[in-house]
């Protein structure tokens, strides 16, 4: 992975010191609260419902064991012993004291981590396929390009005060696992006829109140032109994006207002005109040098143990539980002797994406023992060990199982995305975590979940859509009606190449009936499905109508809200 050099470290140290000074000025009354708000946001610090929240970037989802240990230390010393992994490859700490934040930033800097630009109206953390460098369907590892974009966007002098936040996602594989079409800019890597790295550039996707799927602005952009072209898009947005209304300020609105063709013309004019330098071959090669394949050099742990003459473990053969985990939570690696191992942070009853400090430490050790010290964070709020020797799998499973980190529910209904909702977020209309628990309690049987197969359930506690409900095969949106919590269900949304906005099922559902409603959707699917047909495929084929009928047929009046609720 990328190794911080002198310049990176200097930048983090200066930035942490600068923010420390800003905190002091604010506390002394020398810095106005409104101005301080902008500055703290650009350092990842929010004011939440009960306390501050610090959002730390995990660029393109790549985490080392040393970094994970540092996150554990911070969770222990400054939070209540937890961290929360988000949908944008960040981790959030929900209870830091303002006065401690400069110290936290300084400690993060020790392991090359930071919270720069994780909030505020600027270019946010660059996200990517969490299986980069490991997946079998990869065209080229996108991480060197992500790192170049990370550097390009970090303290970019021109784009620190955009009309609104700006999110960039990159995918280098045949399947899109980074939801690139839902981002302000999405980049899909391919090779041109000469074998050079090119990108298909999408622009203007986004969730929120106005869900929009990104549009193609350029079919094939030479990778060497990436910084210059991104600069052109951002400049057009910075100059022409609306600044008069918070909910009309994202680039998706500008692209829709101008039309993609007129927007493209403006971008091309800036791009041609700016004569911006291209990336040199040496620069690209340097970025790539950080992402060679270290996993091929480390032997399986079993072999190491034998060589060290450790007594072989005499353990009972792994049974059905292991096999189910292997089938659900691991997948093929590009090297047939290795596997990719997913770690579900969606154990029933636990808030999705949460991990406690003790298990962060234990997991860091597991990563060192079995996975070359590398961990990945996915936008589905799970973790993964990207490179594991196949012959180590049983022992790894035992180690994870002891930590209760082997819940075999990856890709199932219970592997849901869920924003923090009322429990933490001051903007929330409704709670979300209790709803997740309600669903898990009702539909928790693993055999049944595995039979139902892949279903992406995504839940947001308000229209801001941090839980990506628009892109859920099943989406749940919390709405407040006269102080009561109601839930709007959508069906058929998706995040990948077939990206689509979910269609509203009908009137909002009462809080107590959400799990029951989800169960009806699943029953309908099980009745309708043709052999091998997945939930989403079934919804796309049969349409929303049969699901709607089933859910609302036997609902009495009081169970659904009488008024239509704006989606």
């Amino acid at each position, binding site marked *: 992975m990328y190794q911080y050099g002198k310049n990176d470290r200097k930048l983090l140290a200066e930035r942490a010191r600068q923010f420390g*000074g800003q905190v002091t000025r604010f506390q002394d009354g020398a810095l106005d609260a409104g101005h301080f708000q902008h500055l703290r946001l650009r350092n990842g610090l929010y004011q939440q419902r009960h306390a501050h929240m610090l959002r730390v970037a995990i660029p393109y989802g790549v985490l080392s064991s040393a970094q994970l240990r540092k996150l554990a230390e911070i969770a222990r010393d400054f939070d209540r012993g937890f961290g929360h992994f988000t949908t944008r490859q960040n981790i959030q700490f929900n209870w830091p004291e303002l006065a401690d934040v400069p110290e936290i930033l300084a400690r993060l800097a020790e392991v090359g981590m930071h919270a720069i630009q994780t909030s505020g109206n600027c270019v946010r953390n660059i996200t990517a396929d969490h299986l980069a460098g490991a997946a079998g369907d990869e065209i080229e590892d996108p991480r060197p390009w992500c790192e170049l974009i990370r550097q390009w966007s970090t303290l970019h*002098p*021109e784009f620190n005060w955009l009309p609104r936040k700006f999110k960039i996602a990159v995918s280098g594989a045949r399947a899109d696992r980074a939801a690139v079409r839902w981002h302000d800019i999405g980049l899909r890597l391919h090779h041109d006829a000469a074998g050079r790295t090119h990108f298909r550039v999408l622009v203007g996707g986004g969730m929120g109140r106005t869900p929009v799927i990104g549009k193609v602005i350029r079919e094939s952009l030479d990778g060497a032109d990436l910084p210059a072209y991104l600069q052109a898009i951002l400049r057009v947005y910075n100059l022409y994006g609306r600044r008069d209304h918070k909910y009309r300020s994202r680039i998706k609105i500008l692209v829709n207002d101008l039309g993609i063709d007129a927007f493209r013309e403006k971008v091309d004019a800036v791009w041609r*005109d700016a004569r911006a330098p291209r990336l040199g071959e040496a620069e690209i090669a340097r970025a790539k040098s950080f992402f060679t394949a270290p996993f091929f050099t480390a032997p399986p742990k079993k072999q190491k143990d034998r060589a060290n003459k450790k007594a072989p473990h005499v353990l009972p053969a792994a049974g059905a539980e292991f096999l189910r985990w292997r089938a659900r939570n691991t997948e093929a690696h590009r090297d047939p002797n290795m596997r990719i191992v997913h770690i579900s942070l969606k154990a029933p009853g636990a808030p999705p994406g949460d991990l406690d400090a003790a298990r962060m430490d234990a997991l860091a050790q597991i990563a060192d023992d079995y996975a070359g010290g590398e961990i990945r964070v996915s936008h589905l709020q799970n973790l993964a060990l990207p490179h594991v020797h196949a012959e180590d799998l049983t022992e790894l499973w035992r180690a994870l199982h002891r930590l209760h980190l082997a819940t075999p529910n990856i890709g199932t209904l219970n592997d849901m995305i869920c924003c923090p909702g009322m429990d933490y977020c001051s903007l929330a209309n409704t709670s979300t975590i209790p709803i997740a628990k309600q669903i898990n309690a009702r539909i928790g049987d693993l055999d049944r979940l595995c039979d139902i197969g892949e279903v992406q359930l995504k839940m947001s506690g308000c229209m801001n859509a941090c839980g990506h409900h628009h892109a859920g095969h099943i989406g749940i949106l919390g709405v407040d009606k006269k102080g009561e919590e109601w839930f709007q269900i959508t069906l058929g949304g998706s995040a990948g190449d077939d990206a689509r906005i979910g269609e509203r099922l009908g009137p909002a559902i009462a809080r107590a009936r959400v799990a029951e409603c989800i169960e009806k959707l699943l029953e309908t699917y099980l009745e309708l499905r043709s052999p091998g047909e997945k939930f989403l495929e079934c919804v796309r084929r049969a349409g929303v109508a049969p699901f709607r009928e089933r859910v609302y047929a036997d609902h009495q009046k009081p169970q659904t809200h009488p008024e239509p609720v704006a989606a």
Partner: protein
Amino acid sequence: MRIIKNRKLIRNRWRLDGGGDGRVILPLARFRELRAASSAARAGLLLAPEDEIASLADADLTAAGLIALEFGSFNEGRGYSQAVELRRRGFRGEIRALGAHRDNLPLMERCGIDAYQLADGEDPEAALAAFSEITAYYPLNGNAPPRAE
């Protein structure tokens, strides 16, 4: 009143139209009128955030004694791109940020802004310290900050 220019405090010799001493800074339409009336008059050019740099003639740039960019609020971001475009067009004179805040100075400077009339309430002496707070940068996103003297 003092302003910051090239990281030093100097006396302000320019005034916005409407009062004070010194040479005048005018919005584009008035700036052009004055130039048409008297080629000897040398005014500064005032640009609002929505003014397009592409709409300026090369002659406007040559004639401008300085170009002042309005930063009406702390989070106004258009001036940064305007400054970059002005430098790209070859403007080598003073680009002055009006209403600048201390914490924004290092990024403004990297966009090519070299003079700062600070917002009300900002202490010019204290603001000078801001330049040395952030000296590291990634070359991929633009010019190095000028070297501290």
